[in-house]
């Protein structure tokens, strides 16, 4: 019979918890060199000979005091889920601060294994840690690990079997201890399940009422009855002259320093020279912002340049199949309308999604992930914080925006790292202003067709990259504007406080990152193609070929929208495509193509050149192209993002705001662009 054990992975932010988790479970939880990458508990499984472990990757937290939602997630797990073992992952290069959390966790959970990660970095910095001594002091296994190289992982798993319980470490000020004792006497009479009475007593003294509410929810009864309240009040009166939070933390800090001094022999007093040098350049007064834009431009350039090849390859591959598929389906005597639906509806939509949408995402995403892995993102937040403070919002919004490049839905869940509710909502509502990489292929295709031309010379590619950058900056600019407006109106308030850690630079795992993120995107896009593109492809084909009177349903709809859309430089088909594309951005263009093909003499398109002709035949001008580009960047978030917004905020109002604010911005800008360009063109 196999045992089952529940394991928690806790620790400070950015110490490699998710990396350890991935190594143990073989899963691909996202990692990144900045505090706040993981915001939700995630579970996985692994086994050894005797035991089946369920392991939970928790968000990083500096302490158990918990201020923001992701920290609450971590704390509540340790308190209420009662893990059999807690692996506390520590950064060997900053053990002092990490020990604080270790000591706090000893107050909650006695079955602890200390995983000393990033030993490679510690070695590089010549930090010498006496593992044996640390183990003796704490009376728990201390395992040195290099998670990215899988070193020490077997030992870590072995240590999960140990029975040693952590030695109690913390003794507070005498007066506080007396009160803790008094409270514990009362608490002894109550059923506390897995809660540690000493810990509960301390939290009562801290008057953390939010946490008390969580206790009640967990226990199923009201903890603070009259007896307890009386004792607590007398205690609080006695301690009135003390800043309890400060005293508690101070005691723990002192203890951490005490242990640290015994086990770490050498610490350099200076910051690492490399970090200093890089920071001097990337946060430089004059160079900081240009470097940031340059990074983005170069990534765009590479994306555009490189995606041509797989794109053409996939396109030709699909295309060469089309006739065979047609013949085959006719061969098995499917009714011809079904054959056409499958080939011209389903197959072509999937073909577009896979060959045009996938390659740019597949190339952009890994580059972006490498940048993220290096530790550069927090520096961006550092550089641009001035603007956010002017907008009365949180500097960490820059991090959630950066996540939005990968996927707006991820960006929205990432907003948990922002403490203040007001600022979190601002970041949530404006996240969709940042174009996710699912929008890039459409933008690139339109730029190629109408603004730059088909020649793929370096000059043209460069021009495309710059235009793409400009449209991205349009989205970012709108983020600032709307954040500011929100701060002055419905989400009124002044900026609240936050601390932003700038982690040490780490050498990104280039090969591994490329492989996992290419896989990640491919699975993501193919998954959406199956779930969304196939059924919508079929649906659109039906709409485009079912006649009511002498017009198709699709053309009735698009004709209806047409006069309205024309005001904004678009047309009915484009608008309709965006509405139908709500489940996923990727299918907007295939819908447009199908709708036009339906009304056009041309029956086929096999390249962007022909596609351009098709669009021009249907009345596209450069104005249409520009307005469509604006609208691609600024419309409503996709359905997945809307669902995430609802899940995170539980507020329909916020979802509606997140839909209509970008929509109104987009339409307004289209209207203006249409008007102005109309004068010149």
């Amino acid at each position, binding site marked *: 019979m196999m045992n089952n054990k529940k394991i928690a992975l806790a620790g400070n932010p950015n110490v490699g918890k998710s990396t350890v988790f991935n190594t143990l479970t073989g899963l691909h939880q996202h990692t990144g060199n900045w505090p706040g990458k993981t915001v939700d508990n995630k579970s996985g499984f692994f086994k050894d000979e005797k035991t089946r472990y369920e392991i939970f990757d928790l968000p990083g937290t500096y302490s158990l005091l918990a*201020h923001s939602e992701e920290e609450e997630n971590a704390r509540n797990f340790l308190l209420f889920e009662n893990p059999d073992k807690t692996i506390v992952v520590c950064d060997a290069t900053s053990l002092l*601060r990490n020990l604080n959390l270790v000591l706090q966790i000893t107050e909650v959970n006695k079955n602890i294994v200390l995983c000393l990660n990033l030993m490679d970095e510690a070695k590089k910095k010549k930090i010498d840690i006496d593992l044996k001594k640390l183990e003796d002091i704490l009376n728990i296994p201390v395992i040195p690990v290099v998670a990215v190289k899988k070193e020490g992982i077997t030992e870590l798993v072995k240590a999960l079997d140990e029975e040693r319980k952590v030695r109690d470490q913390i003794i507070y000020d005498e007066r506080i201890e007396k009160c803790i004792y008094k409270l514990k006497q009362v608490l002894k009479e109550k059923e506390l399940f897995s809660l540690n009475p000493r810990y509960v007593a301390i939290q009562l003294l801290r008057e953390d009422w939010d946490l008390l509410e969580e206790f009640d929810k967990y226990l199923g009864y009201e903890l603070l009855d009259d007896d307890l309240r009386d004792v607590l009040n007398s205690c609080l009166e006695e301690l009135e002259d003390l800043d309890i*939070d400060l005293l508690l933390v101070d005691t723990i800090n002192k203890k951490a320093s005490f242990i640290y001094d015994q086990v770490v022999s050498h610490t350099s007093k200076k*910051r690492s020279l490399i*970090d200093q040098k890089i920071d001097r350049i990337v946060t430089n007064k004059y160079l*900081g912002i240009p470097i940031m834009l340059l990074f983005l431009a170069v990534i765009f350039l590479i994306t555009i340049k490189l995606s041509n090849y797989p794109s053409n390859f996939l396109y030709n591959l699909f295309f060469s199949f089309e006739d065979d598929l047609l013949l085959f389906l006719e061969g098995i005597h499917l009714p011809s309308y079904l054959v056409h639906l499958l080939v011209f509806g389903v197959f072509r939509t999937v073909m577009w999604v896979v060959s045009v949408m996938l390659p740019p995402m597949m190339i952009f995403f890994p580059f972006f992930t490498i940048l993220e892995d290096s530790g550069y993102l927090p520096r961006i937040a550092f550089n641009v914080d*001035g603007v956010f*403070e002017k907008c009365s919002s949180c500097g960490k919004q820059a991090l959630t925006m950066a996540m939005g490049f990968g996927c707006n839905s991820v960006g929205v869940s990432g907003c948990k790292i922002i403490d203040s509710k007001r600022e979190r909502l601002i970041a949530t509502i404006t996240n969709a202003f940042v174009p996710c990489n699912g929008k890039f292929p459409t933008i690139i295709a339109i730029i190629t067709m109408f603004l730059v031309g088909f020649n793929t010379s370096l000059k043209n590619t460069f021009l495309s990259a710059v235009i793409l950058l400009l449209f991205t900056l349009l989205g970012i600019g709108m983020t600032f504007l709307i954040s500011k407006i929100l701060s002055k109106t419905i989400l009124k308030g002044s900026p609240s406080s936050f*601390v932003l850690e700038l*982690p040490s630079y780490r050498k990104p795992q280039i090969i591994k990152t490329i492989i996992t993120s290419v896989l990640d995107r491919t699975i993501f896009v193919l998954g959406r193609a199956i779930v969304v593109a196939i059924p919508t492809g079929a649906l659109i084909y039906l709409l485009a070929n079912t006649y009511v009177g002498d017009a198709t349903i699709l053309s009735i709809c698009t004709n209806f929208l047409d006069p309205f859309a024309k005001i904004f430089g678009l047309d009915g088909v484009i608008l309709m495509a965006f509405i139908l594309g709500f489940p996923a951005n990727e299918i907007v263009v295939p819908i447009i193509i199908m709708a036009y093909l339906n009304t056009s003499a041309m029956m086929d398109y096999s390249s962007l050149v022909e596609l351009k002709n098709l669009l021009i035949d249907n009345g596209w001008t450069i104005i249409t192209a520009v307005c469509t580009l604006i609208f691609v960047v600024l419309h409503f978030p996709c359905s997945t993002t809307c669902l995430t917004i609802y899940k995170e905020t539980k507020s329909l109002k916020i979802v509606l705001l997140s839909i209509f604010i970008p929509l109104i911005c987009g339409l307004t800008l289209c209207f203006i662009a249409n008007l102005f360009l109309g004068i010149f063109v």
Partner: protein
Amino acid sequence: MLLSETKVNDKTIVKRIVSNRDIARRFLDIGLTPGTVVETLFENISKNLCAYRIRGAVVSIRKSDSKDIIVAYDE
């Protein structure tokens, strides 16, 4: 003197923190308590945010928050 008034490369010791409770707890989190040595590292472009070295880690704090931290030079 206030932490927000320190110059780049200054090394100071925290004397008192007078911030409101929420941010004070954040400061406690990162080990910023009275007696801690703080090294002022560099400012950002708009000079509203400054990076400090605290207990071996680099942490940036807005000037509007660091003005609530009273520090003194190390004797």
